[in-house]
């Protein structure tokens, strides 16, 4: 607590304008859920590592917060004020001030690096693609989540991402390649035997992603309605029975059938004309959770069957509409698949 006070006081002295803004508090509110209270990582990548802090500029941190990484989970923070963003950056910097042998925030020139992008591509394919993807689309999954088994301890960031490319200067990328980041799978490529020229060529190739397919990974689905609805020609009871056999026929496990208001009204007083049918394909669920541990927000699969003004409606949420909220393009495919499964199951049930 005292140390925190000191830090705040120090920052306050150096930058009187930030004194009023609580960087630690803003970090807890906006970032800690993903990046960890002490920057150790989680759904997000680690932010407190020595080599990370020593190889990124404050400008990079500010832009990353503002722009986010489209399609790569990291949101963009547009509602924070400039003072808020600066205070968060200072808070993150505070972690390096506490570590031995760390330096002040580096500053990189914005000067482009000249290199041979064609040669760079060959070097990239050989040295980088296994982790960062053939097109720089980044590794699969999120941050460092330890809730289930996975291959790499830390997600390799997408290098073709517009948010990354707009935030990182060539010099910064180069510095990262030269030094590597100790404590992560990202090693120093100078030590791996690449020459400075090789590294310049790789940087030129990474920069060239700006012109190529970068937008592809960054795709965010937006679609239609937030609810999938069909009208059933059968009664509520018949529709539920029919759904049940459809679910089982589609490799889903039936979890339970319950009235909507179960748990809200006295037992026996439930409205039998509003029914929820829960089911799950655990294989699919496991795959989805590996892609993004947040998907539980629309799981397990649920179909609502209810009587409304003399009609029987069969409905589900539309995962395709919801996928944009997660800002995770890997999840898009799964959400589209799920929307399709929902439509097929419902239509089969009311056939």
């Amino acid at each position, binding site marked *: 607590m005292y140390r925190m006070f000191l830090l705040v006081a120090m920052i306050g002295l150096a930058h009187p304008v930030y004194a009023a803004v609580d960087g630690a508090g803003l970090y807890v509110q906006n970032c800690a859920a993903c990046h960890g209270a002490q920057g150790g990582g989680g759904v997000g990548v680690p932010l407190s590592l020595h080599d990370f802090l020593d190889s990124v500029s404050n400008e990079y941190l500010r832009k990353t917060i503002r722009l986010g990484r489209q399609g790569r989970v990291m949101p963009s923070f547009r509602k924070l004020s400039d003072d808020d963003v600066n205070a968060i950056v200072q808070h993150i910097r505070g972690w390096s001030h506490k570590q031995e042998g760390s330096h002040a925030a580096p500053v990189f020139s914005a000067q482009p690096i000249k290199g041979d992008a064609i040669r760079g591509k060959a070097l990239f394919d050989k040295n980088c693609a296994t982790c960062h993807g053939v097109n720089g689309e980044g590794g699969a999954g999120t941050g460092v989540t330890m809730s289930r088994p996975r291959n790499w301890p830390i997600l390799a960031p997408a290098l073709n991402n517009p*948010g990354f490319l707009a935030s990182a200067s060539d010099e910064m990328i180069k510095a990262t390649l030269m030094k590597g980041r100790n404590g992560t799978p990202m090693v120093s490529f100078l030590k791996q035997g690449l020459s400075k020229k090789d590294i310049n060529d790789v940087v030129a190739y990474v920069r060239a992603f700006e012109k190529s397919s970068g937008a592809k990974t960054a795709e965010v689905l937006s679609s239609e309605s937030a609810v999938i609805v069909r009208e059933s020609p059968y009664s509520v009871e018949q529709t539920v029975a029919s759904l049940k056999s459809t679910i089982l026929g589609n490799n889903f496990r039936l979890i339970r059938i319950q009235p909507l208001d179960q748990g809200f009204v006295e037992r026996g007083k439930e409205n039998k004309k509003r029914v929820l049918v829960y089911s799950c394909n655990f294989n699919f669920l496991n795959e989805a959770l590996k892609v993004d541990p947040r998907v539980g927000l629309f799981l397990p699969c649920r179909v609502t069957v209810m009587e409304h003004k003399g009609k029987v409606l069969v409905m589900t949420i539309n995962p395709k*509409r919801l996928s944009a909220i997660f800002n995770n393009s890997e999840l898009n495919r799964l959400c589209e698949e799920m929307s399709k499964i929902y439509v097929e199951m419902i239509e089969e049930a009311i056939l």
Partner: protein
Amino acid sequence: MNTTSFKCCGLRRALIYTLVFGLLWVLPADADELIMVRVHSAFPETMTTLQEVIRKQDYTVSRIQRVDVGLTKTGYQTAEYRVVFFGKPREIKDLPSRYPELTTYLPLKITIFAEQGETLLMALNPILLGDFFPQPELKKTFAVWEKAVRDIFDRVRTEEEGSAK
């Protein structure tokens, strides 16, 4: 935190950013669409506190879905992962007659999962439902739900972190 007070300037600033950096792509989802919080306590305690806090906020917990149990039984490894359903009996009864499609988003839910010694809580920001269900009279309901979720999360965090000290 009161984010709405930054709305005007945030938008203007976003615009300026767009011009300055010539950003031609659409920015990712705004951070506000999901509400997430990290609690520095292990899962079992946090789960208990969450249920207590939901009740203290005058909502009913109708059910807890044990997603992790299903996964483990099927042979997959996972840390604790549950979904807590909650709502107000009155709203669960009345809203579906007026807004049948809204029923697919009811009861409200909070996803809770373990990350090593800590616990994450997560919910869809109910205010987002306003995009899906634009009826003006629902706006207030969604705002009340948003506040409830934020209050629940804040309270769980402060209660857990207070008791840990």
